[in-house]
């Protein structure tokens, strides 16, 4: 392999497989937009990179961008693994991504408005009603509720992957409370310190304006003149708490917990040192289920009792709206290309991954007979839980999933095993090797659609692994979208 490509040190162990490699062409030559990084890596001794890596890690550690390792002795806080080498996207490719994401979020918002109001798409038979009503994130309570500007999803994090032919496809829409944007922002800051000259030479588009863009997006949802915005967090024990605090500070808004909120006379207030202050817009990072013990889960202490009534009366804006999870259900996902066609009359710019619905008897039969070739996912789960990766599974696991699929076909979908593209990573032992990556850009929808040029590139740090979720051994790297 190595000799075939003949890529010189420090890439001598760099094996190009069947997946698309972000940096190298199949012939071992670097792609044009990676040449500057390629040259930098060739001229930098491994010790220099190791030192930069240590400094970057220390910076994350001191900023407290850590999670606690449970079940071990105290003091075991770890940073979220971060890879030193940037993932680079040229301007022309980004333009397609931007166009595709804008189209997709527009259609998904129209879809949400439709199914909570007129339900035309069900009447027209484009999507079977059954699949909506059996979705565990469908909220009956939202029927007929007026949503400001008809924007249900104002913040979305879409997971994209790149296929061996070089095209980007959508793997998942995260329309509830997507997280990770703080890693995008903090890792950019660290990368600018690590590679200032390279950064300048590449012409990387800035992303630092994300917080301002988020604030304007939230503001644009407000009823006239009422502008008190807060960020609602489940609290300090939530794994994304760092991000909540970070965004609140960057936007200059209060970070509130459920216990800070009081509902009185169909208005929601926060408890301040000057008494109760009315709240107009809540950027909530608490799941639907936990927002209001009177309307949803009764055992929740993370929300505020009576909040849903305030919302229904139009006295507070929630972003994202309630019930958006129905549109990122993995079974609905299969219909998104049709939704784009139906609502916008356009062909999708970004395609879906081929998806088999287990409710369809012939597709189910085919998948169950060939489980070792497919990835099976539970429809309502995220974070890489409830998944079977066929090629890496045992016969026992496959038998278990087969039984589960037969028992609850609505609960599962299957997709072919995909070779996510690979990008160069700086490994623990100081080498540069390819690892599989995906890409999560963040889309904001208010008065207009805003996508900061960048995103979170998640990387499966274990060699050969395809699982990029941070809960399962994944890390992140900075994403550089180039000016031209």
């Amino acid at each position: 392999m190595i000799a075939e490509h003949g890529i010189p040190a420090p890439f001598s162990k760099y094996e190009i497989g069947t997946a698309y490699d972000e940096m190298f062409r199949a012939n071992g030559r670097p792609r044009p937009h990676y040449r500057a990084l390629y040259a930098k890596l060739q001229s930098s001794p491994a010790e220099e990179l190791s030192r930069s890596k240590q400094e970057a890690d220390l910076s994350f550690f001191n900023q407290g961008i850590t999670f606690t390792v449970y079940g071990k002795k105290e003091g075991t806080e770890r940073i979220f693994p971060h890879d030193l080498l940037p993932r680079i996207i040229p301007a022309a490719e980004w333009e397609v991504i931007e166009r595709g994401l804008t189209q997709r979020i527009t259609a998904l918002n129209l879809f949400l408005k439709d199914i909570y109001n007129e339900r035309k798409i069900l009447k027209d038979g484009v999507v079977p009603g059954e699949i909506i009503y059996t979705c565990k994130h469908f909220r009956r309570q939202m029927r007929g509720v007026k949503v400001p500007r008809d924007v249900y999803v104002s913040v979305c994090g879409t997971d994209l992957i790149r296929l061996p032919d070089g095209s980007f496809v959508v793997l998942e829409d995260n329309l509830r409370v997507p997280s990770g944007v703080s890693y995008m922002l903090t890792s950019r800051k660290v990368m600018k310190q690590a590679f200032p000259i390279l950064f300048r030479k590449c012409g990387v588009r800035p992303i630092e304006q994300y917080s301002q863009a988020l604030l304007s997006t939230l503001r644009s949802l407000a009823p006239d003149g009422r502008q008190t915005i807060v960020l609602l967090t489940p609290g300090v024990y939530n794994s994304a708490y760092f991000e909540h605090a970070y965004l609140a500070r960057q936007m200059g808004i209060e970070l509130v917990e459920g216990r800070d909120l009081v509902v009185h006379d169909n208005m929601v207030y926060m408890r301040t040192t000057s008494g109760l202050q009315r709240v107009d817009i809540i950027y909530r990072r608490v799941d639907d289920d936990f927002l209001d013990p009177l309307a949803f889960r009764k055992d929740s202490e993370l929300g505020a009792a009576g909040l849903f009534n305030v919302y229904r009366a139009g006295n507070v804006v929630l972003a994202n709206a309630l019930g958006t999870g129905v549109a990122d259900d993995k079974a609905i996902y299969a219909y998104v290309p049709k939704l784009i066609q139906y609502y916008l009359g356009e062909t999708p710019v970004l395609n879906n991954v081929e998806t088999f619905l287990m409710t369809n008897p012939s597709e189910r039969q085919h998948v169950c007979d060939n489980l070792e070739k497919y990835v099976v996912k539970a429809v309502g789960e995220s974070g890489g839980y409830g998944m079977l990766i066929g090629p890496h599974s045992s016969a026992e696991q496959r038998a278990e999933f087969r039984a589960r699929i037969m028992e609850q076909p609505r609960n599962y979908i299957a997709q072919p095993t995909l070779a996510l593209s690979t990008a160069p990573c700086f490994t623990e032992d100081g080498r540069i090797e390819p690892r599989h990556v995906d890409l999560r850009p963040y889309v904001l929808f208010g008065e207009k659609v805003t996508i900061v040029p960048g995103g979170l590139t998640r990387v499966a740090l274990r060699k050969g692994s395809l699982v990029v979720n941070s809960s399962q051994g994944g890390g992140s790297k900075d994403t550089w979208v180039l000016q031209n």
Partner: protein
Amino acid sequence: MLSRVADGLYWMSRYFERSNHCSRVLEANFNLMLNPGKLSTGKRWQNIIGHLGLGAEAAEIEPPAAILKLTSDTSLRSSIVSCITSARENASQVREQISSEMWERLNQLYHEVVQTTAVMNLDTDVQRLFTAVREGSYKFVGVTDASMNHGEAWQFIQLGKYMERTLALPLLLDAIFSEAEGADDLDWVGLLSSCSAFEAYCKVYTADLKPEFVAEFLLLNPEFPYTARYSAEKMHAALDAIGRASSARKAAQIERIAGRLHSSLAYAQIADIMSRDFHRFLRSIIEQCHNLHSVVHETYVDYPIETAFEA
């Protein structure tokens, strides 16, 4: 400002100051112990470690074990490691309110203290811990003053710091003066060092160490930041600023309690205090602090909702 946040800032600051107080007192006494005949100075030492949180246990425990416990026992709420942990926990709940620099300093100190205290060696690590806490505290206090708006949030931090100082000093004085018999110059130097006050004291009284002078300096000096009078004054000022920022309904009551505490120290004379019941005087400061703490809590943090709609 959110009530929960005000409370978090206040407690962050109190726990931080508590860890500092504990570290200063232990460091001063650790140095004393190195002198011949001072290994365990009986009742006075027991009083000191008692006031730092060992309570009844103080009578039985050996000095090295006591120091280990007060520095590194995570199950003891008042140990240095516990106080720093609590300070950091509170800070993490109000992270968007404090500057990133403050958080980073506190976080660094926390990791340093946790690592040093995880396996503590009395010979090598204790002094290192004291130094880390002292230096960490200078950095944290400096960055707090330099990188944060001196608005309501900052005032709650000041309130916490000076509340803790106004409370800790009378407790420490009580521990020592109730067993002052046989105390020599070194003991008085130890007491002053416990408040980082030795050099400042000498500037006023020269190195003439008399118990009345020491008590007068630590209680009534208006210019040194660890004295009771100075702390009460700062507390009074912080509450005044908070009252103005929040237009609270019960601000007048707070002003009365804080003002009375401040004046009781500003207009006192040490001869009067020492000729009467010194212990009672110290207790009365502590009680006024407790009272002030409760009223502040009821006014700004835990007020009944009904009262909020009356205005």
